[in-house]
């Protein structure tokens, strides 16, 4: 990847730049972070003119290594007020890589009174009028594929992003063209929306074949990696068959499954919404339903799925653990059809299901509708779709909704909603939520895999720190996080894979150092943006209100948090 494309929406112009030497060893989240750090005023308004969006594949983007085609998008988050990277699988990273695009920078703000989309192929970079603005992502995607054919990869926002709702994410299309692989967290869909950009269409047809530094050696390493992935119980068996939904039985068992706005850690209907039940529904209904589905071309883990309705017609794809948590147990909804329907509604509006699940949970907790009222939840999403005053509040996410409703039980860290692990049940994740520059983000350092007592505060600081570093490595390589347990013990091998692909010589220790450096860049940006250690905390109700049955509170000492940034 040898070029950076810069699109200035204020001028309606673009430039193609060579990659500066200092950016060569960076990719994915490390690259988006560094560009934002270098170019964006940390004090700027996230929904203002001076914020930028940077899309970047990882260092391994475009290679045929399994599970290495994740896309990062970076910017200043309108939810956290700090550095944000959101990340997804899908096809866009591969398409950008094939065109040799190391980063795509979107800056400025369109002065036009209509939305545009950016079209990119081998010969063309052009802004075009987006007459499909206002449409949900599913119908907009259909239109784009009719116009450009199915070799195109789409990056889209929904009406939520167009209106600047802070719960809005950015989505990109999977191998079959579904616009449902979300770079969901942190409200970057709103940033794209206020800039007046509806979509980015990338067609890599006819692009020169990607060259490898040593293709044969790379092939051998890929074979080894595939073997490791297939032999590992999680990547070889649990994820392919049951998907991320299998996590629900685990978190439910250790009282970490968010239930009724994080008021309990286990849900009486958990066995109706977990991985085993999901597998049963998908396989017994058949039709368009599928388990073992790949979101990225060539991935051998295939943790995704296609959820069918009772008639076997596709309802939503994928149906993930996070949605089962935040829009299921967290709302006291114990029915996968209801959850799948809510998932579809959020997707179409271009909204993050974690953020919206937490938002609706707060609304239920404050009595707007009852816990368990799936129709009521769908009605709230209709309000969002219709841009009513209530919809506008809800679309701004859980913190703003909670403030308007007067809640003192808002499950956020740095303004972003917590994912489906109650920090009182998985205390290491609590540390990550509080200390990560990303805010409450499980993908920034998940400790669930460690064989420790998750309710014991003692080992959690070190665990979170290690997990945050490893997550950053995955994020700048473009790797799916799920490969890390198989590969994390073989960082030297990962460095070698990188060298065989793009010629960048990097050892396992250097990978760790690069990850630490990238985290420092994020923390420094946040510091300059006005985020102080005072924001490295969790909501007080999680420190004071014990979870039922376990009586657990979040009790990792706040002082210790300073250490995570000082070492």
């Amino acid at each position: 990847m040898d070029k950076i494309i810069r699109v200035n929406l204020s001028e309606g112009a673009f430039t193609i730049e060579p990659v500066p030497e200092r950016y060569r060893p960076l990719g994915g989240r490390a690259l988006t972070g560094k560009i934002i750090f270098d170019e964006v005023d940390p004090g700027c308004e996230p929904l203002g003119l001076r914020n930028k969006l940077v899309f970047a594949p990882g260092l391994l983007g475009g290679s045929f290594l399994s599970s290495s085609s994740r896309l990062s998008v970076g910017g200043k988050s309108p939810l956290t007020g700090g550095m944000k990277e959101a990340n997804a699988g899908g096809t866009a990273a591969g398409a950008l890589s094939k065109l040799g695009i190391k980063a795509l920078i979107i800056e400025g703000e369109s002065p036009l009174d209509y939305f545009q989309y950016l079209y990119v192929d081998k010969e063309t970079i052009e802004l075009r009028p987006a007459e499909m603005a206002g449409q949900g992502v599913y119908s907009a995607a259909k239109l784009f594929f009719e116009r450009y054919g199915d070799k195109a990869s789409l990056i889209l926002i929904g009406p939520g992003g167009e209106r600047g709702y802070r719960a809005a994410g950015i989505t990109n299309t999977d191998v079959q063209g579904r616009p449902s692989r979300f770079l969901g967290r942190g409200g970057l869909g709103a940033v794209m929306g206020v800039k007046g950009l509806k979509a980015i269409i990338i067609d890599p047809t006819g692009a020169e074949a990607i060259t490898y530094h040593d293709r044969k050696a790379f092939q051998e390493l890929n074979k080894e990696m595939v073997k490791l992935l297939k032999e590992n119980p999680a990547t070889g068996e649990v994820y392919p068959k049951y998907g991320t939904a299998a996590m629900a039985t685990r978190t439910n068992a250790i009282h970490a499954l968010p239930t009724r706005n994080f008021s309990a850690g286990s849900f009486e209907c958990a066995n109706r919404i977990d991985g085993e039940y999901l597998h049963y529904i998908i396989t017994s209904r058949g039709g368009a339903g599928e388990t073992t589905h790949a979101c990225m071309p060539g991935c051998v883990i295939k943790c995704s799925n296609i959820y069918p309705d009772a008639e076997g017609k596709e309802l939503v794809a994928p149906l993930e653990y996070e949605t089962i948590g935040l829009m299921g147990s967290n709302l006291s909804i114990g029915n996968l059809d209801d959850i799948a329907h809510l998932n579809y509604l959020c997707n179409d509006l271009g909204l993050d299901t974690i953020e919206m699940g937490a938002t609706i949970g707060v609304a239920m907790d404050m009595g707007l509708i009852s816990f368990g009222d799936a129709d009521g939840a769908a009605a709230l999403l209709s309000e969002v779709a219709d841009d009513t005053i209530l919809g506008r509040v809800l679309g701004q996410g859980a913190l703003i909704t909670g403030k308007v409703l007067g809640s003192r039980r808002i499950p956020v860290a740095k303004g972003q909603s917590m994912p489906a692990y109650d920090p009182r049940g998985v205390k290491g994740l609590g540390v990550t939520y509080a200390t990560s520059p990303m805010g409450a983000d499980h993908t920034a350092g998940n400790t669930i895999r460690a064989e420790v007592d998750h309710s014991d505060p003692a080992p959690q600081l070190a665990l979170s720190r290690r997990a945050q570093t490893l997550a950053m490595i995955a994020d700048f390589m473009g790797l799916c996080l799920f490969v890390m347990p198989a590969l994390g013990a073989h960082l030297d091998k990962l460095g070698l894979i990188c060298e065989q692909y793009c010629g960048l010589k990097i050892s396992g220790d250097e990978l760790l150092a690069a990850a630490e450096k990238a985290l420092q860049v994020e923390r420094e940006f946040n510091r300059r943006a006005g985020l102080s250690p005072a924001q490295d905390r969790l909501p007080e109700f999680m420190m004071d209100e014990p979870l039922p049955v376990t009586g657990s509170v979040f009790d990792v000492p706040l002082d210790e948090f300073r250490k995570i940034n000082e070492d």
Partner: protein
Amino acid sequence: MKQPGSSMPVIFFAHRFFNGEQRFKGVMFSMQIKVRLHDILQDKVAGYAGSAEGAFDYQLPVGVPVSHLLKVLELDSRYVGLMVVNGRQAGKDYSLQDGDRLELFSPMSGG
């Protein structure tokens, strides 16, 4: 895998010699626990009759660690990433007691 005579508090151990003679060897206090296997583990233990809802009863000497049970079940330790006893997380060295309800899960890194 319900064992006959599961209400008996003791296990008699016998040793059969090569000539076919059987001698009573000793007695150990035994206990009964309930074991539930989740998702992929259900296919890895021979004779596991439990469904997603069910569990099976197992008889073991009192106080053996979870790791001992894994050996008895012939379940490779790397397949077990999370153990929960009576609703609380436990380690492989947890000493099992009579009436314990044990759930076993394979590892997952996230989701």
